[in-house]
């Protein structure tokens, strides 16, 4: 029986549950002996010119070895935004701010101390003169260009994807009903358990070795080399255990480069671990879009036109967030067949924390906008939201389907996912219960939200087709090692990659060691993000394993003095045998005795894959207090074939929790002066088990032909499907009272206010 598709327990867990992980802060590598500790001085003001930076008092504080300000690093190049050809290249950043600070948390100086705790005392003694400038927090303030963050750029616009002039006025011609609305997809904090950290040391050979919690050592290496103005070959990045990342640990941040710079400057290893406060104000945030939608169609439910206009908050310095409208536009029409659709986007800078990738990055925003639009349309024509969706979904397809926005959907059966989810939810019964609760007029009402999605996973980077490499080596003692270019931080690659190779090589899962995240060992790799790992990294492991069997077959033929063609590999025994003569056999491990037995392989996919599904959420709303409680979440998440249901369910669970959290609870809030109001976990309400029901997961597996495993990505399905379903359920619970929309997060105050406004309007129209 194949091991693929079975619930193999995570081989990672015994270590995590007994001795514990080794995170960057835990490292005891002797190369780090005698390390000094870096602590950042961060701007308390959103936008200001920097005057004098006086480090003298800090330098005199106990334990302080050195202190540096931006001027000390001025000979390092200004950092251009990624994809500088596309984004406004004038919006550059310094490792430590020199002329201006642009958000609360912008690093302006560092103090370096003997012991870690001394830094927090010493930074209070750094005296920086700030000459405040107006903050730019609001989208409209950013677009007005009244206050410009980067004077050289002359505008706050980072990039435009299409523009208003290109919109077609005739898009909604022939529609019986047209609805429009503007709403937010709010800024959230990735909030990993492990905050950012670094440890750095330079060798005699002038090479940097640095340990950074990241999602791909190779891209972290390249980012660091650029920031430090050295060759990539001079940098070795090692990835210790990583305590959560959610997109925000891709590449390297300026702080990581500063720690390396300090280590070089002082000729001494340097370490840094940020505080939770620093994490919440200066690790990249996610989302941060505003959507204006227009949707039109016939009274019997055909959607004929859809327009999406996006404003993306890029934060103070353009990072990947500024690029995300590109993906939101690409996925604008989701799983639906909409004859006329257009989408445009503009990214702006604001005096807030930079926006990066966060679980789903660009696709949750597309789904949220579209699903909200469909609900508004359904409400307007008085049709069941599930029926409107079914009527407009693309028919099932097995040959790739090209969308108007340039996406090539590999395979899909969207209506089947919808029907399966509705059946698992008991949709008709839920609607009946809702009707009776509405009729009884009780205080606590119930709502049902349905969201259909298709998303993109495993896309290539700028350089082309998606690729990943793997090395598989079998050792004489019967163990094996896998080197992968992916970079797990909770996903379970050690288990999954071992399963894939075990299937081919007949070596038990527990005999594998999976290694990643050391750029000297694995110089090339795409890391883990965009739900790419299994479909590319896993496929590379499978390919390398198969190729290893072929390499071993030649050796076996020599050993058994038989023709390679006559040999059969028996995974049950992990041995080759001559056909018809099972006694003439040789073990795979034995073929590694005289010469190392390994294969390095690169897997190239034809393109990205497009997982899909449907989420149904059931919520209760207290109509007096506005408080919403999530009662059920039922999901169908079709990500192709499932390698290990345990791992796939874990990905779905975590994603659903974070997706529900965006709808219910989480939001990074700034006041009008750009001060963060959610800079601790007392104010930033991460979701916990008490706010979540047990999730009900239905399974559906439509294979893709894009990789031999038949798999697509599952890491982000939860945030993409759950957020709109939960938001919709909450609105639906009070829809009969006249509420059409509530912004996310659907706080009690917002729900209450929507109820008050709806009731006032109801009274108005009655009296009119």
């Amino acid at each position, binding site marked *: 029986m194949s091991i693929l598709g079975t619930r193999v327990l995570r081989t990672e867990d015994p270590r995590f549950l007994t001795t514990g992980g080794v995170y960057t802060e835990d490292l005891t590598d002797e190369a780090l002996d005698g390390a000094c500790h870096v602590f950042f001085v961060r701007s308390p003001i959103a936008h200001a010119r920097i005057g004098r930076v006086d480090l003298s008092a800090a330098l005199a504080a106990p334990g302080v070895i050195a202190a540096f300000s931006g001027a000390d690093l001025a000979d390092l190049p200004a950092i251009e935004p990624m994809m500088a050809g596309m984004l406004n290249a004038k919006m550059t950043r310094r490792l430590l701010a020199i002329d201006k600070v642009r958000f609360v948390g912008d690093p302006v100086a560092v103090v370096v101390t003997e012991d*870690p*705790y001394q830094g*927090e*005392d010493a930074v*209070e003694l750094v005296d920086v003169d700030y000459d405040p400038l107006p903050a730019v927090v609001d989208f409209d303030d950013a677009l007005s260009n009244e206050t410009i963050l980067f004077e050289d750029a002359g505008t706050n616009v980072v990039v435009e994807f299409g523009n208003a002039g290109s919109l077609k006025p005739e898009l909604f011609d022939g529609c019986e009903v047209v609805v429009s609305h503007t709403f937010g997809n709010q800024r959230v904090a990735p909030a990993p358990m492990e905050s950012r950290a670094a440890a750095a040391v330079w060798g005699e050979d002038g090479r940097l070795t640095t340990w950074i919690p990241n999602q791909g050592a190779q891209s972290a290496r390249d980012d660091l080399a650029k920031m430090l103005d050295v060759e990539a070959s001079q940098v070795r990045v090692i990835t210790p255990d990583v305590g959560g990342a959610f997109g925000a640990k891709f590449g390297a941040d300026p702080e990581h480069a500063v720690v390396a710079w300090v280590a070089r400057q002082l000729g001494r290893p340097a370490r840094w671990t940020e*505080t*939770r*406060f620093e994490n919440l104000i200066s690790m990249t945030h996610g989302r941060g879009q505003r959507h204006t939608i227009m949707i039109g169609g016939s009274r019997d439910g055909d959607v004929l036109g859809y327009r999406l206009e996006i404003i993306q908050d890029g934060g103070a310095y353009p990072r990947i967030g500024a690029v995300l409208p590109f993906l939101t536009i690409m996925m604008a029409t989701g799983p639906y067949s909409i004859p006329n659709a257009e989408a445009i986007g503009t990214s702006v800078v604001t005096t807030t924390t930079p926006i990066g990738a966060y679980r789903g990055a660009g696709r949750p925003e597309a789904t949220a906008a579209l699903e909200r639009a469909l609900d508004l349309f359904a409400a307007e024509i008085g049709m069941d939201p599930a029926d409107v969706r079914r009527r407009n979904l693309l028919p099932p397809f097995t040959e790739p389907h090209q969308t108007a926005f340039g996406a090539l959907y590999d395979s899909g059966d969207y209506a089947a996912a919808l029907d399966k989810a509705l059946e698992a939810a008991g949709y008709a019964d839920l609607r009946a219960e809702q009707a009776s609760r509405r009729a009884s007029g009780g205080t606590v009402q119930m709502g049902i939200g349905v969201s259909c999605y298709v998303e993109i996973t495993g896309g290539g980077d700028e350089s082309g087709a998606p690729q990943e490499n793997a090395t598989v080596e079998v050792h004489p003692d019967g163990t094996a090692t896998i080197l992968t270019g992916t970079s797990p931080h909770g996903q379970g690659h050690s288990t999954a990659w071992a399963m894939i190779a075990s299937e081919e090589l007949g070596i038990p899962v527990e005999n594998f060691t999976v290694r990643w995240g050391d750029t000297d060992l694995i110089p090339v790799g795409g890391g883990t993000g965009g739900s790419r790992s299994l479909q590319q990294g896993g496929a590379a492991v499978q390919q390398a394993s198969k190729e290893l069997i072929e390499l071993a077959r030649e050796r076996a033929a020599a050993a058994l003095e038989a023709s390679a063609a006559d040999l059969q590999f028996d995974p049950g025994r992990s041995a080759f045998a001559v056909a018809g003569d099972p006694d003439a056999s040789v073990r795979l491990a034995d073929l590694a005795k005289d010469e190392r037995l390994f294969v390095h392989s690169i897997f190239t996919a034809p393109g990205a894959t497009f997982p899909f599904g449907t989420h149904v959420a059931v919520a209760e709303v207290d109509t*007096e*207090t506005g*408080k919403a409680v999530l009662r059920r979440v039922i999901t169908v998440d079709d990500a192709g074939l499932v390698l290990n249901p345990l791992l796939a369910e874990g990905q779905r669970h975590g994603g659903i929790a974070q997706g529900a959290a965006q709808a219910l*609870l989480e939001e990074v*809030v700034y006041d009008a002066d750009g001060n963060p*109001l*959610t800079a*601790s976990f*007392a*104010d930033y*309400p991460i*979701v*916990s088990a*008490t*706010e979540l029901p047990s999730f009900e997961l239905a399974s559906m597996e439509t294979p893709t032909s894009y990789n031999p495993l038949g798999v697509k990505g599952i890491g982000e399905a939860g945030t993409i499907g759950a957020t709109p379903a939960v938001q919709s359920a909450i609105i639906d619970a009070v829809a009969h009272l006249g509420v059409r929309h509530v912004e996310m997060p659907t*706080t*009690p*105050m917002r729900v*209450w*206010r929507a109820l008050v406004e709806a009731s006032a309007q109801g009274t108005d129209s009655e009296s009119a």
Partner: protein
Amino acid sequence: MIPAPFDYVAAESAAHAIELLSQHGDDAKVLAGGHSLLPMMKLRLAAPEVLIDIARVADLAGISVDGDELVIGATTRHADLASSELVRADAPLLAHAASLVGDPQIRHRGTIGGSLAHADPAADLPMALVALGGSVELTSAGGTRLVAADDFFAGFFETALEPGELLTAVRVPRRPGVAWGYQKFVRRANDWAIVGAAAIDGRIALANMGSVPVRARAAEQALADGASAADAARLAADGTSPGEDIHADRAFRQHLARVLTRRALEHIS
């Protein structure tokens, strides 16, 4: 998140703690459960030079009966309050309030004295004590004085505690079998109340409706005059001026105060 440097002394008795307090004056702070003080120190909102730890002082802990009152030692943990047979029988509102504080870890560290002395208007135990009409014993080198809950809370994180005074015990009237109501409005299970309401015996206290736990006096008066729960509750926010934050503005807090008061009163009737 590391506090500024400080010295630490473990008090051996209540008298020792009081002696240390008078010796160090304003530079010192009492450390009980540490679950309000230490976060403030880590955020550097507080930077005492000396911490006087009373958590292990035996004569400050324990729950006993004194006539028609319960006497609760200042370092009694929330978890002990919640599970005490005595408190559950004679002051169930207080036991219930304690059971809703934060999460189990917090309830096993935080103390009633610390919670009252910290005087967060959003907290559970201050509101409960005001509703119950309890009082606190404040002891200094000069002796012990008794201050009613209504007079103890002076403002945001401010109390009637004078420099050199230690909160040594809490007194609560015993009311076995008397119906009560308690409403805590939160978004997440372990959050502080956005608004709270506690009612017993014609008294109504509100959390997070001002700088101190306040009485809903107009509603109490209406009840005394024979109004229904629903009618009395409509007056619950009268005279309050709650603050605004990311969870609630003034109007929403006042609305919640009315709804929660009605629910607390309906629970009684």
